[in-house]
């Protein structure tokens, strides 16, 4: 045999006595276990008919009457094994409901000797049939769930008739070396039959022995001892077998995963009408807890004979969870059969369920559901830059170059995110809340697959890559962005891996395919540029960086041609020039331990293998995190999104499948820990965003509005306000219009004359120098002054002694004053308000002029005239519109057109594959 020498002399003395087996007829003792309610005589008769000589037949059971002559009755197996003479080489264990063919033992002994196996099992055929297979050795998953690979009722056509190593053989008929049997303490009496076979097989393997199945040894099994397909005793036994066998480091991740798998299995089985799974899992865990002391004792015994690591067990295991695979397959089978009975689709579904990546994706989607649960239940919070989309037509008109009404207005372009969000609102028939939630979910789901694809392009694909998707979406960089309420950047993380993957990979095989690649890259580049404009350059830089690694296939030309689609975000970035390096930064505080953990993980993975992919992941992660300290928020968003994708790749690299050395195992553990730490982002169920701050709480601003009015929001911390804010005397402030905070208002354009006037008015009010602050604010259209609770000390004293702003006591946690002297944003000289229409205003035609409380801009019409910092238009036409097409709008159109053209090209080019 091939047993590895052990330091334990007590054990090795027995284990090493294997030399003479090939030269003589091996001595065998047959041990038949009585099955309750089954007459063992047929089994004993079959044993007696064996071609191979049997030294002695033992019957294990409690009944002592009626024992045939020549059969020795024993109470338990341990007693039998302990009493065997050292001349006995093998013990043949048989169940009392088994009927071996006459040559079964001979085949077992012959093959065990030939392959130097320590444990050999028979091929089991279902009793009462001539050729229905029950078992030809089994594999298990990591949780010990058996996997025979046989279909129900599969006929034996000798298709499995080859002696091979297996994870375990059934205890119905197994041949075990006596010395090993004695050294290992025999069969665990606490376990049910199948679990007992699994347990013994694993212990044999850990002790360095081989476990084989001998198909030429055929045994009919009446299955009266149980089929081993369930029952909480079998389940708890399997769990105990794994708890005994694995090293502590494996148990660290196996036990939680087993727990989670049990929950998922129970829940999914409910859909199949099986309610017993849950209680069975509970019983199994409870049984193992109750028997923990004996399990620990057994582990101690195993550790004395351990010759190999867990990887030797993993070699004979299937990936993923057998239970989940089965239940998933059954679910999809039932569903698909409703439409397509036994078709190719159904068979394809079964294949899909057999992939471990499928389970990784399902697992990550389960995490997504957890991480987005509050989004589905109560919608996205309104906080920071996570703001409602607003009216689709208004948003889209602003996106394509209409008036930017944020703050006191500007001709500067709005954030390009208003484009896709406006379209999303249109697609949901104007239900912006549904659009927000759906877009968020789609982006997160896209992120999971995107990281998977990008990792595959970098050679580190597989189930770990999909788990990396969870790390990307909820890990450290994403949590930094989420903490700052940067919703658009979180969505960009979902699309960014696709954009990066579009510039890496095999070259096109033809012109049409190349155009398809360019189109896809252009569309994805434009898409990410819409959410985070600074990311528009990321695919091109990524392609350059990939080329520098010298290994991966970089589509540099594709990236170059596709990058102009990023023009959609360029006008916005140009208008924010001063904020690219300055402004209110995203708080990037990261716990050094977490950063250190990620660093150690990626470095270990790089040392072990995949150094290039690891380098890409590391540079993206840490480069993004480090560089984000030097830039303003618009660039920070891009860098942190890249870091998030990098973190996803770190996990993918660490969890990459394949042979592992010590470093790789350590990297794997690091990857798992990074993944677990990243899951902290699931806690709130809001995609990592803070709780709602400006949603329902500020809904009163829409009440009783006559025309368009504004609210002046005040907070001591700029991060406490929705979107951008401006510094005021002792606090930060910003204006929103009476629709409430919306995404198109999030970014404030550069200060205009009106902003300066507003700053002066606020200073005047806060200094207590005016008795009528409402009058001061009325020219800006401000009806509401809303401060967070912390600002009551700052603005309270000044606003206690004034006569035209009433306190509004119905806003929870806010200090609110209502201006009794308000004048709407668009109002005629006689005080008639005009209503908003798109990015303009409409009202009854009048000979009066209509004042627009926006920063002065001659693009307004008809007949715009300046009035101080604001302006007025003629009321004759009954509408006030902004008609100025600048180069910024042209660039946005161009970028949008290129992106949409790219989408079309991408679809067209893909069809050739």
């Amino acid at each position, binding site marked *: 045999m091939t047993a590895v020498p052990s330091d334990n002399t007590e054990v090795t003395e027995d284990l090493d006595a294997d030399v003479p087996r090939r030269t003589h007829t091996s001595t065998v003792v047959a041990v038949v276990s009585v099955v309750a309610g089954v007459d063992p005589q047929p089994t004993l008769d079959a044993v007696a008919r064996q071609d191979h000589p049997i030294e002695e037949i033992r019957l294990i059971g409690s009944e002592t009457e009626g024992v045939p002559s020549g059969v020795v009755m024993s109470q338990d197996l341990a007693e039998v094994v302990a009493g065997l003479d050292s001349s006995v080489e093998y013990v043949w264990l048989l169940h009392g409901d088994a009927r071996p063919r006459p040559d079964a033992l001979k085949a077992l002994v012959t093959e065990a000797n030939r392959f130097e196996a320590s444990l050999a099992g028979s091929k089991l055929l279902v009793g009462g049939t001539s050729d229905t297979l029950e078992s030809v050795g089994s594999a298990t998953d990591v949780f010990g769930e058996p996997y025979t690979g046989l279909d129900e009722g599969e006929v034996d056509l000798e298709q499995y008739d080859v002696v091979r190593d297996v994870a375990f053989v059934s205890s119905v008929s197994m041949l075990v070396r006596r010395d090993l049997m004695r050294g290992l303490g025999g069969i665990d009496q606490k376990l049910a039959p199948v679990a007992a076979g699994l347990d013994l097989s694993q212990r044999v393997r850990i002790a360095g022995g081989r476990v084989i199945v001998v198909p030429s040894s055929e045994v009919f099994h009446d299955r009266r001892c149980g089929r081993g397909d369930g029952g909480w005793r079998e389940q708890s036994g399997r769990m105990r077998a794994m708890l005994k066998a694995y090293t502590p480091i494996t148990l660290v991740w196996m036990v939680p995963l087993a727990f989670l798998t049990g929950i998922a299995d129970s829940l999914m089985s409910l859909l199949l009408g099986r309610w017993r799974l849950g209680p069975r899992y509970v019983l199994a865990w409870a049984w193992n807890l109750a028997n923990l002391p004996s399990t620990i004792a057994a582990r101690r015994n195993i550790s004395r004979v351990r010759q190999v690591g867990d990887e030797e067990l993993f070699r004979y295991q299937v990936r993923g969870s057998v239970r989940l695979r089965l239940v998933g397959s059954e679910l999809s089978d039932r569903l698909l059969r409703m439409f397509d009975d036994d078709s190719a689709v159904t068979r394809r579904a079964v294949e899909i369920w057999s992939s471990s990546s499928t389970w990784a994706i399902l697992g990550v989607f389960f995490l997504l559901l957890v991480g987005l649960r509050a989004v589905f239940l109560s919608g996205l919070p309104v906080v920071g830059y996570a703001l409602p989309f607003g009216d689709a037509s208004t948003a889209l008109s602003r996106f394509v170059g209409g008036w930017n009404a944020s703050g006191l207005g500007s001709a500067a372009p709005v954030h390009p995110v208003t484009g896709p969000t406006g379209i999303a609102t249109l697609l949901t028939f104007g239900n912006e809340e549904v659009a927000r939630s759906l877009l968020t979910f789609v982006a997160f789901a896209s992120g999971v697959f995107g990281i998977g694809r990008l990792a595959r392009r970098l050679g580190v694909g597989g189930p770990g890559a999909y788990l990396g998707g969870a790390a990307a979406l909820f890990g450290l960089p994403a949590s930094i962005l989420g903490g700052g309420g940067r919703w658009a950047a979180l969505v960009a993380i979902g699309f960014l891996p696709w954009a990066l993957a579009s510039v890496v990979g095999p070259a096109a095989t033809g012109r049409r395919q190349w155009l398809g690649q360019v189109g896809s890259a252009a569309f994805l580049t434009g898409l990410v540029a819409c959410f985070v404009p600074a990311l528009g350059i990321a695919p091109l830089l990524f392609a350059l960086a990939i080329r520098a690694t010298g290994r991966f296939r970089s589509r540099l030309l594709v990236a170059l041609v596709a990058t102009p689609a990023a023009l959609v975000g360029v006008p916005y970035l140009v208008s924010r020039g001063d904020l690219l390096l300055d402004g209110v930064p995203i708080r990037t505080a990261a716990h050094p331990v977490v950063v250190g953990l990620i660093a150690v993980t990626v470095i270990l993975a790089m040392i072990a293998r995949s150094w290039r992919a690891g380098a890409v992941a590391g540079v993206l992660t840490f480069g993004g995190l480090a560089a984000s300290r030097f830039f303003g928020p618009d660039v920070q968003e891009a860098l942190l999104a890249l870091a998030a994708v990098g973190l996803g790749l770190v996990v993918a690299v660490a969890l990459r499948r394949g042979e592992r050395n010590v470093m790789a195992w350590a990297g794997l553990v690091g990857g798992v820990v990074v993944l677990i730490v990243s899951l902290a982002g699931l806690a709130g169920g809001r995609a990592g965003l803070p709780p709602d701050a400006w949603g329902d709480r500020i809904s009163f601003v829409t009440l009783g509005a006559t025309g368009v009015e504004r609210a002046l929001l005040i907070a001591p911390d700029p991060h406490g306000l929705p979107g951008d804010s401006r510094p*005021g005397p002792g606090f930060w402030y910003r204006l929103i219009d009476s629709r409430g905070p919306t995404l198109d208002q999030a970014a404030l354009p550069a200060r205009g004359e009106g902003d300066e006037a507003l700053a002066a008015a606020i200073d005047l009010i806060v200094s207590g120098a005016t008795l009528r602050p409402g009058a001061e604010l009325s020219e800006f259209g401000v009806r509401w002054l809303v401060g967070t609770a912390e600002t009551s000390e700052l603005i309270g004293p000044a606003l*206690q002694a004034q006569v035209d702003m009433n306190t509004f006591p119905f806003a929870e946690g806010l200090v609110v004053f209502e201006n009794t002297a308000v004048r709407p944003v668009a109002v005629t000289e006689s005080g008639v308000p005009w209503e908003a229409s798109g990015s303009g205003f409409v009202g009854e035609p009048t000979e009066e002029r209509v004042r627009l409380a926006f920063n002065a801009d001659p693009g307004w019409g008809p007949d715009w005239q300046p009035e101080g910092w604001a302006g007025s238009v003629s009321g004759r036409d009954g509408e006030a519109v902004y008609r100025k097409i600048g180069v910024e709008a042209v660039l946005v159109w161009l970028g949008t057109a290129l992106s949409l053209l790219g989408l079309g090209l991408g679809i067209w080019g893909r069809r050739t594959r």
Partner: protein
Amino acid sequence: MRIAALIAVAALAVASIVLPAPREPVPLPPSPQSAAPYTVCPLGEAARRTTALTFVQAGPETTVAVFSAGEVPVEQAVEVSESGTAAVVLDDITGLARAPVLVPQGTPPAAVETILQGGGAAAAPCQPGSPDPQVLLGGSTAEGHTYTISLANPFAGSATVDIAAASEVGVESEPALAGIVVPPRSVIAVDLHSILPGRQAISAAVVTRQGRVVAGAVHDSGADISATGGLVAGLDWYLPAPAPEGLSRSLVLFAPGTSEAAFQIDVYGPDGVVEAAYEDVIPAQSQVTIPLGDILEGPGAIRVLSANPVAAALRFSGEGANAVVPGVATPSPSWRLSGAGRLGDSVVHVFNPGDVEVTVELQAGTGDPLTSVAVPPETAVDIPISARSIGGKLEADGDVVVTWTTASEEGFAGDAGDPLAPG
């Protein structure tokens, strides 16, 4: 290449740990608080008594707004003379029994005083109020006396106040004086003589919990009335102390805080300065009444120095006379005396607390000089001012403290001058 990649990743990881977070921007420094852009006359009445508001240095667009029961029934411009003087008789613009008035202020703010006539005579300053406790001194709820506190809230938000009263029996505890809600643009009258009857000497502090009120009080002794505005407690008080014939004078001190206040009284009499002529301790939220005759014979001045904030006033009482003249916290070279002379011939009391002689010029409200007097150091001097509809001003070449009193057939009245801050 592999080593270089490892080093690069490690270096970036270290950088992302050690690099400092971006600098958090800070908001602009808080705005310096401006002088209140308004003043409030809480004691205006238009039915039972005649109330005149006297203005000195008023702007040309001065308006007054009478507020009551949540409304502003009267808001009208004031006819201001070219020299900035004006007088508004409330009976002429409203018939409301209680007619508190809000006066928006310009720069510099006008001096505005409330002059009450009817059942006696009294004068009290119009004030912007304060979020700090406003102390009303020198009242009485003895039999035959009425003492009414007016809580005026001309603002847009409601206010909630507590009244902490103290009398000769000590700190008063009365639930009815706690949590008084004063609605916006309203005045609440609290009759202390009904709630705490029989107190010979009572004072009170109006403590604001929420919002802002302007407090004032009228004490009717049956023969005369006195009116007081809310004083904000301080550590140093100057009180010129005339000695009108036949009237008794007493010094009333009140400590509104939660700590006792040790104090000393320096007396500036005919014989010079006697420092610490009197020392004592005021229990927390209590008052002390000191007969002035015990420490100062004849006219002079006193200065009160305390360890914790107190409010101080002189109460004059006697046959047909009842007045409370508040102390002055800070000497100044410029004073407005808008009510002096409105009730008849009056006396301006000028106290020079410094150690250098000061020359003061008394002017009419128009700015025309009336008289010029040298005030020796640490001395109080009386300067008569004839009857007039609107008082006058006083300019000095050093810091002085100024009050005025009027003795007429209607009664005895007086008030502190209104200092004009430099610039």
